[in-house]
Structures are given as C-alpha cells and as structure tokens.
C-alpha cells in the first residue's frame, strides 16, 4: 500500500468513527440505528416524512409506510395509538412537533400511559418514547414556546429526558427507545441547528440518571437544564475572568434525577443556582433545591437561587421575549450576589 493510499484509508476510517453532526442529525442517527436494530421500533407523528427540523428525515425512504407513519392532526390519537401499539408488543416513537401540542393529548399521556403499569399491578411493558420540542427564543409567542417538563415530571410513571448536546441527544434517545417505560423526550428548538459536535458513528448509549459535569469549579454550583447549560457555561467563562470558578452540572434526565452528583458538588462549593427556561413557580428548580436542602443543608453558605421564566406566558415581542428567558448576565449577577 503506497503512502497516499494508506493515508486515504486512514482518513476514511477516522471519518467512520466520528462525525461532526448537529443535534437534529444526532437524533436522526439514533432513530435510524434503533429502527435498524429492532423491527418493533416505529415512528408516528404529524409531517414526519417532511420533518421540519430534520429529525425524522429520510426514515420513510428507508423504513417505509408501516414504520414511519404520518398522522392526521390528532394528538390524542397519536399518544393513544403509541400506547395501544406498545400494549401489543411494539416500541413506538411518537412525535409532537411542539410541546404545546401535547396539551391536546394529556389524557392519553397522563391518565393512561403514565399510570397504566401501576394500575395493572406491574403487568404491562410500555416501551414508548414521546418526542417533543420545547424552548423559546424564536418569536413564536405564548403557545409555541412552552417548557413543560415539570408537568410530566410530576406524573409518576413517566421518565423525562432533556439532552443539551448532540452526543447526549443520540445516546439518550437510544436509551429511551430501549427503556420499557414511557419516556418524555424533550428536544430544544434552538439547539437543533446550533449545537454541533463530533459524535461517534458507532453504537453507544447513555444511561438515565447520570448527570454530566460540564465544567468543574469550587465556588458555586450551577445546575442548568438543556439550553440553559450553554447559558451557565457562558456565565462561568465570564466569572472565571473575575477569579470565580463555577461548577456547571447538566442533569440530562429530570426523571430519574442524579441527585448525588448535584449534592456532591454543593458539598464542595456550598452554593447553588438552578437555571431553567420553564416558569419559576413550582419548576424543576424548586424540586432540585428542596432535595439539596434536605440532603446538604449544613453545607450551604447562602440560600440557593433559581433563575427561570418569571411566571408569565412568552410574549411575542422579541425584546420582551428575551427578558423572559434566563440570560448570562442574570446568572453572573446571581453568582456575584451569592458570593458577596
């Protein structure tokens, strides 16, 4: 083999190992891999053949009309059909393009899917993924910007997953599809195109309930949900130039929640801030802080803080909308006041 050929071979191999992909492409890879791996896996949802954000793009062409099913605008039927198909041994992945449309399907999601296993005395496997997209930031106004993760986290029986990177998106979606419980899998509108990274082409999964420490630091712990991880990291970078080292934790899954990692961090830093896009009132921040207080009260040097949507629907006007989403400046200011 000549030197050139060898290099080409090597380059090809390297390319087959890692690939630079966006968040939506990573999700697409996960769906494709799992559908190839298990004929019981199928997708259903509105316009999933065209796929506005590209997550299900090309799947219809590969897997055909019995495994990639474009549905009418009938969210109750989408959720219920996923549940019913699971009861006869299928592994559905149902899509609701915006989280707001899940509100049309709450009976099937919460009264049926979440409780069925328990009501049946444990005698049911419900391997369903309900994929959806949350988050504000694109002037979509009040109905198309909701982050409703805690609504679902509040329903025993559902797992709630919120990946913040392409790598996690792929690994967590594969885990969600293989999980035998209903999983609410929340994607993010802005991350679809903006988040890009090297993702292994090869098989990997990420277990639920394992937080990722995105940055280590000793002065303050910042827990960020999904896109707020980016905001927390940007704030941490800014704070670092002032000599403040923030530890940034991405829980990745809200149910189950990796409390140990958060508590261990707070035991080190003695300060906690939780950042999420959902409304502040009764949000995930309240739960995380309550748990930390219960488990690490003696370690806290200051009252834990939440930075979240200020309990208002998302306004259309983009300046008002921006004010409603947690910002880097808010996180920086909160850290500074915690430390002062």
């Amino acid at each position, binding site marked *: 083999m000549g030197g050139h050929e060898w290099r080409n071979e090597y380059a090809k191999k390297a390319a087959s190992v890692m690939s630079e992909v966006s968040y939506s492409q990573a999700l697409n890879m996960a769906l494709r891999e799992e559908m190839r791996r298990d004929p019981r896996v199928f997708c259903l949802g509105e316009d999933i053949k065209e796929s506005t954000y590209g997550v299900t793009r090309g799947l219809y062409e590969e897997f055909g009309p019995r495994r990639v099913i474009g549905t009418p*605008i009938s969210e109750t*039927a989408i959720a219920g059909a996923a549940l019913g198909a699971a009861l006869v041994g299928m592994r559905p992945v149902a899509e609701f393009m915006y989280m707001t449309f899940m*509100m049309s399907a709450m009976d099937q999601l919460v009264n049926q899917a979440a409780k069925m296993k328990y009501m049946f005395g444990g005698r049911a496997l419900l391997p369903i993924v309900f994929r959806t997209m949350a988050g504000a930031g694109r002037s979509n106004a009040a109905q198309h910007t909701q982050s409703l993760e805690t609504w679902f986290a509040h329903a025993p029986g559902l797992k709630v997953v919120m990946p913040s990177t392409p790598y996690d998106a792929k690994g967590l979606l594969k885990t969600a599809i293989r999980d035998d419980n209903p999983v609410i899998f929340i994607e993010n509108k802005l991350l679809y195109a903006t988040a890009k990274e090297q993702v292994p082409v090869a098989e990997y999964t990420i277990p639920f309930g394992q937080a990722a420490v995105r940055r280590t630091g000793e002065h303050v712990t910042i827990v960020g949900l999904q896109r707020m991880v980016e905001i927390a990291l940007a704030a941490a970078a800014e704070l670092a130039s002032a000599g403040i080292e923030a530890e940034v934790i991405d829980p990745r899954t809200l149910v189950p929640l990796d409390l140990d990692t958060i508590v261990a961090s707070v035991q080190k830093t003695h300060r906690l801030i939780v950042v999420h896009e959902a409304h502040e009132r009764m949000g995930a921040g309240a739960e995380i802080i309550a748990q930390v207080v219960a488990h690490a009260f003696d370690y806290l040097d200051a009252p834990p803080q939440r930075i979240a949507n200020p309990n208002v629907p998302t306004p259309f006007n983009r300046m008002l909308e921006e004010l409603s989403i947690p910002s880097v400046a808010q996180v920086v200011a909160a850290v500074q006041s915690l430390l002062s």
Partner: protein
Amino acid sequence: MSTLPSAPSINREGLNDDQLRQFYVTMLRIRRFEEKVKELFLDARLYGSVHLYIGEEAVAAGACAALRDGDVISSTHRGHGHGIAKGLELGPMMAELMGKATGYNFGKGGSMHIASLDHGMLGANGIVAAGIPIATGAALGFWIRGSREVALCFFGDGGANHGAFHEGINFAATLKLPAIFLCENNHYAQYQPVTQDLPVSNVADRAAAYGIPGVIVDGADVLAVYAATRRAAERARAGEGPTLIEAKTYRFEGHFLGDPESYRAKEEVAAARTERDPLTRFATLLTQLGLAGAEDFQRYDDAVRQEVAAAVAFAESSPEPSPDLLLTDVYDVDGRA
C-alpha cells in the same frame, strides 16, 4: 343579432352595487396587506411565525360580509384575512405583527394571536382546531341569553381531524346553538395533502354525523361563500342550529413564510394562481356586470396600497412595548380588561 356580450345573470343575493364592489375591496385589502407582510418579513422588518392567506381571500370576505355587528368569529394561525374582513384596522394589525406597543395585543400576541374583542374577533390561534369549541362557547352564551348573534369559526381541513372538531360541533349540534363552522379546505395541512388525512371526499360530509347541514362552496367565489354563510346565519338566528360549510380553496403561498414547499409542484401552484384567483375572478364578474372598469380597479388599488403604506408607517414609527409589560396582564387586577 346583438354582438355585445350580455351581462351574466347572477344571483346578487339582494346586494346592491356598492356591496358587491366592497367584496372586491375587502379581498384586495387582504391581498395587499399580506403581500406587504411577506416583503417586510423577507427584509427582516417583521418577524415571527407568519402564515399567509393569499389565495383564500374570498372565504373571509364572503363569510364576514354575511355577519352583523355583534356576531363573533374565531380564527386560526392563518388569521390576517379573517381579522381584516371582520373590520380590524390595518395599522394596529401591522403593528401587532411587528410586536409594537400600538398593536391590537400591545405586541404580546403577534400574527398567531391577533384578537380584538371589540370587533367580535375572538382571536387567531396557534393551536389547530382550538377555535372550534371556543365558537361553540360563544354561541352557547348567545343561546343562554336568548340574543340573536351568531358565532362563526374558521378552521382548516387539517383541523377537521382534531378531536376538538368532533367535540365542538357535536356539542353545538345537540343544543342547536347559533354557530357556523366554516372549514377552509385549502387542500393541505402543513405539508400533507388533504387526501392523505381525510378518508371521506369532503369535510362537509362529516356534518351528517352531527345531524346538521353540510354545505360545499367554491372558496374562490366570494358571492358563493357569502350566500352559504348568510343562509347558515339565518338558520342559526332562527334557532335551527349550526351549519358546517366547507369552502374549497387553495393557498398560493407556503404554509408559513420560509416554507421550502417541497411537497407540491410549482406547476400546481401556478395553475391555481391563474385559474383560482378570487380577485381576478370577481374583477371579471364586476366588469361583466358593468360595475367597475379598468380605471376603477386602478383607483381601488391605489387607495389600498396607500392604506397599507400608512399601516406600515404607523407600525414602524410605533414604539416597542415597555419592558414593564412583560409582567402585566397575566391576571386581571381591576376588572376592566
């Protein structure tokens, strides 16, 4: 033997010449307003999720002309035409699309949520089919009070597959509420051709399931839409209950501004633009009836373009809402709305 073409004999539905001309002007106002919206969006002078109504103007213009003051409408994500036909002014509408403080919703709603209760416009809506039960509720209010208003709901062919369609219409039918359910079948729900999601030939066929009349009209024919809506409104006011009207129409633009439209052939759109343009059709009719000529059409167009330009100037020179507005209006504090 006369060589002059005779005026077509049409049923004028008791409308006088000016009322007929007004149909054209209303459609033109919607058309020019939306053309401007598209232009501004492409120039990044306007933002958000915008769904254009171009091609469907005859439905809103015909239907709203059959309503009276006091009657109400509920609308959809594609609601600009409904608002204009119901009497909303172009200035505050444009301002709302730009998120300005002078918009109908003070910039908090945007295109998908324009509302003006003063005009009987109960809101555009980001949720497909959500306006159907809302119209049922408005009709219920009129029915309880024993007043003579009607509620009309615009919704799409895609909306006819949502559970809210069945529940809302069935409820209205059981009490014979004064409601009109007007389906704008533009042949697509986002990217899905209507045939894929609708196992029956017509949305109107579903009326039989609720024991109410189902009427099909040509949605490019403003007079036909008017006539059907007027009959439905008379029925509703007489206590005979709701009607389901299906207007067969076509949207000339993409589902939303920015839609690459890979799901339909360019030729299909081009053909609709030449064969099914409600403005061209009605202009031809007005000409044949001798009610308007080239000069009149030019005059209408100049006036409407001026009105639209004034709306843009008003909107662009209007202030952004003050940051305090972020936190207001979540709850009522003084009962004055």
